[in-house]
C-alpha cells in the first residue's frame, strides 16, 4: 500500500439515438428488400452507393434513386491475417473494395468462396444475401461477395476508381 499511485482509470459511457438520415435510411430499406440502392448526382451524374444525401464533389442533394444489380468488380483487396477484438470472421479472410455495376464509387466488402491466393484485382463478384426471411435494414443482410464466374474486368474499366 505504500506504492505511489501512477494510473487512473476513467470509464466513459455515452448513449446515443442515432438517426440514419434520409439517404441512408433509403439505402437500408433497400437492403431490407434485398437490393442495393444508389443515388445519382444531378450535376455530375455520378452514382453513389451507399448514398450520402449530398454529392461529395458538388455539394448538391443526390435526389435520383438508382437500383443497382448484385454484381461488380473487385478493384483492390487485402488478405487479413491479424485478429481484432470482437471479430467473428475466420482468419485469414479477404477484404475488398467492390465497384457494383452502375456505381461510381466502391465500397468495402467481405469476399468468401475463393482461396486467398486466387483473389485478384478485376475479379467479378456477386453478392450473397441471407435468406429472404432474415433480411433487415442492416448490412448483415449481405453475407459476403463471391466470384460470379464471369471473366475478369479489364483494368481500364475500373482503374479510375483506384
Amino acid at each position, binding site marked *: 500500500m505504500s506504492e505511489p499511485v501512477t494510473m487512473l482509470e*476513467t470509464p466513459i459511457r455515452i448513449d446515443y439515438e442515432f438517426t440514419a438520415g434520409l439517404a441512408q435510411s433509403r439505402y437500408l430499406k433497400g437492403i431490407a428488400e434485398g437490393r442495393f440502392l444508389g443515388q445519382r448526382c444531378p450535376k455530375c451524374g455520378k452514382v453513389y452507393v451507399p448514398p450520402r444525401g449530398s454529392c461529395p464533389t458538388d455539394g448538391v442533394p443526390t435526389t435520383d434513386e438508382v437500383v443497382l444489380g448484385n454484381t461488380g468488380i473487385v478493384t483492390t483487396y487485402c488478405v487479413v491475417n491479424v485478429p481484432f477484438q470482437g471479430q467473428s470472421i475466420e482468419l485469414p479472410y479477404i477484404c475488398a473494395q467492390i465497384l457494383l455495376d452502375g456505381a461510381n464509387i466502391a465500397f468495402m466488402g467481405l469476399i468468401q468462396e475463393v482461396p486467398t491466393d486466387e483473389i485478384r484485382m478485376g475479379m467479378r463478384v456477386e453478392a450473397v444475401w441471407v435468406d429472404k426471411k432474415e433480411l433487415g435494414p442492416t448490412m448483415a443482410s449481405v453475407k459476403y461477395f463471391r466470384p460470379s464466374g464471369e471473366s475478369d474486368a479489364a483494368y481500364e474499366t475500373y482503374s479510375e476508381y483506384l
Partner: protein
Amino acid sequence: MAPGTRRRGPARPVAVVSFAQSDSLRREEHRNDVEMLQPVIEDVFARVGLTKDDMDFVCSGSCDYLVGAPFSFVGALDAVGAWPPMRESHVEMDGAFALYEAWTQLQEDDIDTALVYSFGRSSMSEIGRVLTLQLDPYYMAPLWPDPVALAALQAQALIDTGRYGEGDFAAVAARSRRDAKDNPHAQVKGDHTPEELLGDDYVVTPLRRHALPPITDGATAVILAAGDRANALCERPAWITGMDHRIETHALGARDLTTSPTTRRAAGGAGLLDDDGEGSGASVTVDVAELHAPFAHQELILRDALGLGEGVTINPSGGALAANGIMVAGLVRIGEAASRIMDGTAATALAHATSGPCLQQNLVCALAAEPAGDGGR
C-alpha cells in the same frame, strides 16, 4: 500590455458578407448532419451569388461526440463538395473559433474569401454527459458534473456577491424570449413576465428552467471576404475591425466565476477598450452586442466585464437562451451581429462566443459598417 498580447500591424480589412442558418429545433427528426447542413451552405452562397469554387479557404467547427461518430466533420464536407481539392481546416469547437482561424488565414494576404460553417445535433445524445467529457479528467470528470450544475455554482457565486439575484436572471430570460419572437430561426420565444418565469421549478439551484438554454439541433454558415472583394459582394459588408480570444485556467476552483477577465481582455485585443482590457475603467461602446450566454446569469457577467451601458442593444436575436446549438451558437452570434451591420440598423457591433465550463474561454469579434481607419489595432 498584458503578457501574450501583441499589438499587430494594420489588420487587413475582412468582412462578413453573407450569413445563413437553419431553424433551431429541439430535434432534427429526419435529416442527418450532411442533409441538415447542405441547405444552409446553399443559402449562404446564394445570398452573394457565389459557389464553393469561389472559396479560397473553408473552415468548420463541430464535435464528433455529438453524434458519437469519428470524423463526422469530414462527412459534413459532402454538403460543400470537396472537389477540386480545397484548402480546408476544422476545429473541434464552436464555429466562432473556426471563423477566427479563417480570419487569421485571410490576414496572410494570399486568399480573399473563406467559408465558415458549423453544425451539431445535441438531441442525439445525453448532451450533458457529452459536455462533461471536456472537463479535467482527473479532478472533475470523475464526478460527472453536468453543465447545468457547473453553471449553477457560478450563478450562486454571483448571487453571493450581492450584485444580482434570481429576478435579474428571469428578466434576462423574459427579454430574450420576447426578442426571439422577431427571429424566425429561434426555438424558444414568447411573452412571459419575469414573475411568471420565477414560478418555474429549480433544475439545479439557483437556476430555474428559464435560466437554462434549450437543447438545439442546427447549422449555420458565414462567408468572409477581404478588401475590395467584400465591397463587390455586399452593399454593406460587416467589417471585422478586431478579433481576439483568451482562456482561463481549467482549474474551476482557481477562477473567479463572477467576473470574466478573459472576455474583457479579448475585447481589448479586439480593439474595443482603450486600456486593452487590462484595467476596469474603460467600457465598450457599440450599438449591438450579441453575447453567447447559454445561462441567463452569464449575460450579466459578460455585460459587466465589457462595461456595456444602457445604450447597447443586447441579443436582439434572442441569444443563446432562445437557441443554443452546441458548436453553432457562437458563430450565430457573429452572424447575427454582422446582420445588424449589413441591414443598416447598426454602425458598430460586438459578437462574443464562449467555450468550456462557466465562460472559461471567450472570443470577442468587433464589427463595424466601416473598416478600421488605420487598418485596425
